[in-house]
C-alpha cells in the first residue's frame, strides 16, 4: 500500500500527544536518517517548523565511522536545530539561539534556527542526559522535536515523553530471520507494559541485567519484575525475547513505540522489501513502513 510514509508516521506520533519523536535503530545504517528526513519533510509540509537534533553525529555526507556516503539533511528555513557549533555552516548564516556548555563529538552544542534552506549536519550530545536537555531546550524554540537516535543509545529515551520509531534494516543482520528477530526483541523490550500496582512485585534498582534475569528465571520468579523504564532492561536479541517470555517484566514509565521502518537495502546485502516489511509487521504488531518504497506493510 503506497503512502506518504513520513506523513503517516508523523500522524501516528502526534496522535499520542508526545511533543517529540525519536528514531532509534537496531544497528548502524538501518535507515534512521532516511526515516527522520521523511518525517521532517512531512512536518514542514504541514507547516510545522520542527526542532532537530541527534544523539551523536548525523547528517554528514560521509560516515565518519566507516567512510561510506550517508544521506544528508537539507533543512528548510524556520527549522530549529541543536548541533555542534563547529559544524554549523558559515553560509548561509543561521540564527544563533543559544550556546550550551554541553559537549559533543565536534565541540560545544549550539541551538540555531535555519534562515535560508541549506544542508546541515547534526552532531548532538553523546549522553542520554545531554540529549534530554537538548530536546527540552529545542522545545522552547520549536513546537515539535525530531531526534535521530544513535546506534543502540536506548538510554536516551529514559525520562522523556517521546514517541519512538524503531528502524531496522538489512545492514544490521545477515538474514531476514535475524533482522526480524532483532527488531522484535527491541520492540518487545521497549514496549513492556506499565506496572499497574495491583500485583505483587519485585522492584529492580538499576538495570535488569542478563545475569539477574537468568537468576530470576532459574528461581521461577512469578512476581512482576518492575524496572524504572524499559531502557533499564539490559537485554537484547534472542536473550531479551527469552527473558521477556518467561518473566513478567513491567515498568513504571512506558515508552510509546508508534512505528517501525524497514530498510531492505544494506551496504552488503538486500532483502526482498515486501517480505521483510510484512514479517517485521507480523512479528512486532506495530505499524511498519518502508520509506524507500513509500509503502506501509500489509
Amino acid at each position, binding site marked *: 500500500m503506497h503512502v506518504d510514509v513520513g506523513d503517516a508516521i508523523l500522524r501516528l506520533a502526534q496522535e499520542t500527544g508526545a511533543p517529540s519523536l525519536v528514531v532509534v535503530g537496531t544497528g548502524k545504517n538501518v535507515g534512521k536518517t532516511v526515516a527522520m528526513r521523511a518525517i521532517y519533510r512531512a512536518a514542514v509540509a504541514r507547516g510545522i517548523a520542527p526542532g532537530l537534533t541527534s544523539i551523536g553525529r548525523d547528517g554528514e555526507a560521509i560516515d565518519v565511522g566507516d567512510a561510506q556516503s550517508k544521506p544528508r539533511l537539507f533543512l528548510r528555513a524556520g527549522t530549529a536545530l541543536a548541533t555542534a557549533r563547529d559544524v*554549523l555552516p*558559515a*553560509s548561509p548564516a543561521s540564527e544563533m*539561539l543559544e*550556546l550550551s556548555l554541553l559537549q559533543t563529538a565536534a565541540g560545544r552544542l549550539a541551538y540555531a534556527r535555519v534562515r*535560508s534552506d541549506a544542508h546541515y549536519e547534526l552532531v548532538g550530545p553523546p549522553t542520554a542526559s545531554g540529549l534530554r536537555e537538548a530536546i527540552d531546550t529545542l522545545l522552547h524554540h520549536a513546537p515539535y522535536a525530531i531526534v535521530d537516535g544513535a546506534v543502540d543509545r536506548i538510554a536516551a529515551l529514559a525520562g522523556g515523553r517521546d514517541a519512538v520509531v524503531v528502524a531496522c534494516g538489512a545492514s544490521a543482520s545477515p538474514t531476514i530471520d535475524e533482522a526480524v528477530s532483532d527488531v522484535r526483541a527491541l520492540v518487545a523490550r521497549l514496549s513492556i507494559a506499565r506496572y499497574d500496582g495491583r500485583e505483587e512485585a519485585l522492584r529492580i534498582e538499576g538495570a535488569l541485567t542478563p545475569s539477574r534475569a537468568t537468576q530470576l528465571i532459574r528461581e521461577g520468579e512469578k512476581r512482576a519484575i518492575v524496572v524504572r523504564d524499559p531502557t533499564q532492561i539490559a537485554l537484547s536479541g534472542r536473550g531479551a525475547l527469552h527473558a521477556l517470555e518467561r518473566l513478567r517484566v513491567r515498568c513504571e514509565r512506558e515508552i510509546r513505540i508508534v512505528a517501525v521502518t524497514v530498510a531492505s537495502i544494506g551496504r552488503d546485502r538486500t532483502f*526482498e*522489501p515486501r517480505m521483510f516489511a510484512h514479517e517485521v509487521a507480523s512479528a512486532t504488531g506495530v505499524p511498519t513502513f518502508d520509506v*524507500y518504497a*513509500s509503502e506501509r506493510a500489509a
Partner: protein
Amino acid sequence: MKPGALLDDITARALEFRWLRTALAPASPYGDRIFERIVPFAPGEEAQAEARARRVAAIASGFSSQTLDAMRDVFRNAPDASNAIARASMGDTLSDANLLELQRFFDACVRLDTLTDENAALPRVASAAVVESARRIELGRAGKFGFYLADAFDPALERARSSLAQAQAEYDAARGRATAAIATLLGREVEPNEFIVMRADLNGALPDGVRVVREAPTYLLCEIEETDATLAALDRRDALATAAAAAEETVRRALTDAIREHAAALNAAADAFGEADVLVAAARFTQTHDCTVASIVSEPALHATGACFIPLELELEKEGRHFTPISIAIDDVAVLTGPNMGGKSVCLRTCGFIAICAAFGLPVPASNAAVALFAEISWLGVGADDEPGGLLSSFAREVVRLRDLLKRDRRPLFALLDEFARTTTPREGKALLVAVLKRLQAIGARGLSATHLAGIAPAAGVRHFAVRGLRGIPNRPATSDLHQALESLASSMDYTIEEVTDEAAARSDAIALAALLGLDERVITDAYDVME
C-alpha cells in the same frame, strides 16, 4: 585562589582551605580567571588587605541577598566571550556563535551595572567600549536573546540573499515538477532522493528521468536524474550561494574589525566583570556567615571575639546543634589545655581559618577581630600525620615537618600545634614540646599548642589558656545512642577559653567522657578507683 607559601597541603587540609575556596568560587569563567590569580596578601600589605575586606563588606551591606543572587545569575549565564575578543585581536573573522557570545556578554555587563546601581564598591563594567561594540552588533539581535547576521547590516547582503532565495525557489520548483511528473507516471509518492520501484509494479520501462542506482531480483533502487532545466537552476543557485556567502563574510569582517578596534578595552571590561564576580561571591559569603572586617595589624597577633570555624558550624547545624563561638587573644606562643572533646582542636582551626580569611582580604567569621598577615600558617600534630609517610612513623613525620618548617624560617609564622609529640613517651614528649615552644618564641612566631601534657606552659615560659570543661558529670543516655551522648556532652560542656595560672587545675574529664560514650561501667569505676 592559591595559598602560595602561606599554607602547605597538610595545613590547607586541616584548616579546610578547599572548603573556603569552594565557598568563594565565582560563577562565571571571567571570575574563574581572576579567582585563579588571587594569592594571599603578604606581611607589609596590611592596608591593601584591610581595604579589600572593607570593599567586600561594603558590597555585602550595600545589597540585599536577593540582589547579590541576581548578580550571581548574571555572571552564571554570561557566556565566555574572551575567546571571541582574542580571535578578533588576532585578525580571525568571528563566527556567528562568537558574535552571539559577545552580544550576551554586553547584555550581561549592562544588566550588572543596572543591578549595582552605581555602588562604588563594584566596578562599572559597561564601559564606553562595551556600549559602542554592543551598538555595532545590535542590528543582529534576533528575538530577545538570539543573533542573526541580518540583512540590515548591509544592503548588499540583503540583495545577495534575495537573489539566492529566488534561485533556490526556482530550483525547488524545477525539481518538484520533475519529481511530481515521475510520481504521476509511477502512480505513487516518490522520495526526492533514493526510492525503490518493485519490478512487479513496473508496467514496462522506468519513466524517463529515473536512474537505476542498484538492481535487486525483485526491485530497483532509483533516483531522479537532474534535467537540463534543474541543472541550470542548480548552477544559478550555487553561484548565488557563493555570492551570498561572500556578502555574509564581508559583514562578519566589518563586525570583527569593530570588535578588534576596542579589543583592549573589552578585555578590561571582561576583567572588571570577573573582578565583580569574585567580589560578589565574597560578599555573599560575608552575608551568609555574618563576617566582619578585621583590623589588619602590622604587629604579629590574632585577637578574635565570637569567632567561628564555619565548616564545623555548618556540620553541626545539619545535626541541629550549635557552634559555640570562641574568643581568644594570641600575642605570642601559648599553650591550650582542656578536656577531651572540649574544642581545643576546633579553637586551633578557628584561629587558623581567621588568619587565612584575613590573609586573602576577606571579612572574617567573628564579631570582632584584629589579625596580622603571616608569612606562613602551619599545622603540626593531629591530622598532619595522616599523610602517607612511607617508612616514617607518626612521630617521625611530625618531626620532619617541624624540621622543614624551622628551616624555611618564614616570618612571621603562625604555628598551630595539635597535641604535638603525643605519640612518644610523656616525659620526652613534654621535653620536646617545651623546647619547640621556646624555639618558636625565639623566632617571633605566634600560635597555639593544644596539649594534654601537664606543666608545659611554665616550663616553656609561655601563656596558658584552658577550656573550662564539663560543668558537671553529664547524664549518661539511657541508650547507647551516640548522637544523644554528644548532645548531652555539648549541654554540659563550657567551651569558654580563658587564660589560667593554676597548672594544677588542668583536667581532661576523660573518664567522665568515656562513661558518657558508653564504656563498660566496671571499667569506669576501676578508672576512678585508680585516680583516687
